[in-house]
């Protein structure tokens, strides 16, 4: 008997989530009180802490989910538990060093990866351990679910294995690509460097989304009665999403004077998301019906709420991917709303669903009445706060865009947005409280050593 390494990752992930939201709240209050901690704990330290810890939350939770799920799917242990433990410790130590470096003001100064480039090396090495572990573990794995007309079984991976495989490989590639700026050829060229940076980032976000969405499908399949992971339609949506996430990055940089065909390609690819949106809306009635059936399941509730956020964020994403609209929304809080809606509404809801599934599967009885009350209230508080938070960001983005076009000075725009920022900070705070209410029972389950289990 030994504690699952997957759950150790998850524990760390939950701690990162709480810390990320805590720093996020301080940052939000600095919007309305500009002098708050300005010299002792300034925004340029708070923001990277918030962003890096949120990214850590997403990675730790999804990697933990994969380490936990793989042995169950394949019904055999991981290729190397030792390698996974090394991965965990390298991640943890690097994370601590990154936090300390931010606190002391040592930065690499790039968006997302604000830490010194030297700290990317252990991350790359530990990710390489994951690649070895993942691909060696699934080596020889095949399922024979899909049969063609002749009754011959096709050798297919369930779609979530595909998603994890592509997510793991492409994160490795795009993370390295994000450091091309270290080469003078790129460094000495402003437009070239920006384009390459956002090309890598667009795909990089796509890669971690693959890990998260793979977990969503895995949990969805386990909590419902439908074998969705091997349906041809699920595969087509996966490939559509995959192409989108890897090629649709240029909607981030329409504004940069790069080649026209890059903009056109990004625009065309982004519009294919309409197909995904149409499919989700088409299925919505069925999802609601299923929802009623499985409402007793905690993971299913979180997945249902992520579905709501997928629709709202996808609508915004499609609208702001139209270049003629993007030129007005780019650089405003509408982009922040899109980012927050995706990381909290979609990714966090999915990851919490997967953690609830990992911790107790569908056994509601694992939680006391008080814990259940706390979780359900936390769930509603989080979603309502996020809705207010998100709407405020969209509204402040519209206002900022309007005033920018009117040539209003930046400081005046910030003053006119003050009331929006108050709502934004307060809803951010209540969002943190909601998440704490959800996470506390999970942490106590994980730390009470109730989860000692077989890697089998």
């Amino acid at each position: 008997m030994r504690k699952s390494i997957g759950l150790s990752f998850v524990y760390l992930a939950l701690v990162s989530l709480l810390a990320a939201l805590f720093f996020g709240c301080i940052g939000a209050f600095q919007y309305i009180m500009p002098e708050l901690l300005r010299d002792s704990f300034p925004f340029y330290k708070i923001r990277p802490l918030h962003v890096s810890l949120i990214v850590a939350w997403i990675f730790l939770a999804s990697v933990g989910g994969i380490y936990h799920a793989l042995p169950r799917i394949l019904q055999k242990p991981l290729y190397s538990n030792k390698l996974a433990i090394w991965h965990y410790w390298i991640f943890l130590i690097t994370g601590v060093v990154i936090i300390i470096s931010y606190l002391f003001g040592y930065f690499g100064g790039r968006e997302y990866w604000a830490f010194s480039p030297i700290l990317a090396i252990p991350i790359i090495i530990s990710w390489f351990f994951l690649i070895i572990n993942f691909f060696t573990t699934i080596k020889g794995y095949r399922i024979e679910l899909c049969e063609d007309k002749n009754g011959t079984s096709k050798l297919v991976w369930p779609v979530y294995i595909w998603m994890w495989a592509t997510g793991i490989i492409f994160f490795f590639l795009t993370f390295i690509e994000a450091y091309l700026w270290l080469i003078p050829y790129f460094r000495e060229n402003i437009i070239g460097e920006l384009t390459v940076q956002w090309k890598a980032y667009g795909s990089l976000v796509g890669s971690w989304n693959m890990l998260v969405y793979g977990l969503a499908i895995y949990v969805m399949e386990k909590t419902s009665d439908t074998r969705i992971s091997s349906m041809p339609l699920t595969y087509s949506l996966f490939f559509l999403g995959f192409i989108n996430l890897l090629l649709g990055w240029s909607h981030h940089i329409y504004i940069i004077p790069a080649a026209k065909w890059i903009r056109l390609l990004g625009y065309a690819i982004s519009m294919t998301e309409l197909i995904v949106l149409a499919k989700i809306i088409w299925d919505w009635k069925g999802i609601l019906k299923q929802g009623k059936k499985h409402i007793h399941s905690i993971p299913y509730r979180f997945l249902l709420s992520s579905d709501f956020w997928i629709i709202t964020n996808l609508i915004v994403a499609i609208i702001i991917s139209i270049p003629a609209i993007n030129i007005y929304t780019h650089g405003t809080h509408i982009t922040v709303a899109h980012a927050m809606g995706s990381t909290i509404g979609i990714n966090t809801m999915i990851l919490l669903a997967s953690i609830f599934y990992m911790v107790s599967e569908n056994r509601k009885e694992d939680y006391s009445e008080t814990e259940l009350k706390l979780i359900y209230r936390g769930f509603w508080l989080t979603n309502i706060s996020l809705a207010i938070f998100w709407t405020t960001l969209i509204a402040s983005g519209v206002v900022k865009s309007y005033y920018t076009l009117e040539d209003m000075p930046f400081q005046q725009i910030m003053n006119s947005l003050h009331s929006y920022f108050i709502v934004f900070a307060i809803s951010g705070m209540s969002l943190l409280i909601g998440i704490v209410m959800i996470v506390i029972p999970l942490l106590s389950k994980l730390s009470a050593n109730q989860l000692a289990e077989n890697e089998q």
Partner: protein
Amino acid sequence: MKMILPIKILLFIILAYFVYSFAIYNQVMHTEVARKSISPLAVKGKDVFQKFNCISCHQIYGLGGYIGPDLTNTISEKGEAYAEAFLRNGSLRMPNFNLNDTQVEALIEMLKAVDSSGSFPAKDFDVSWYGTIQKKEKE
């Protein structure tokens, strides 16, 4: 043996990604604007910009943080002296970083290089009926 198929597909996708990335780099590094390399001092300015994590508050071409203003065209719109005053003293929101003369000079050089590369926010664009944008030709 049968297992090899998904791995083959994966390898093909990776290869396609490399080819596609190379095409992108080749394109973006050779556009008219991109061909203009920046001075060593401006490169040094980029280092200073990153060292103090300026992107967490400011934006370049609308990319970055939101608590401070976009800096793409600060030099042409506000002037060097304006930029220098903020760099040396900070503001209500911005701490004073106690930058030395070389750092200030390098940052201003970098801002000049960014300024000459294009404009933001976009104002001089033609919009096509299908929603794409194209920078207006200068008359």
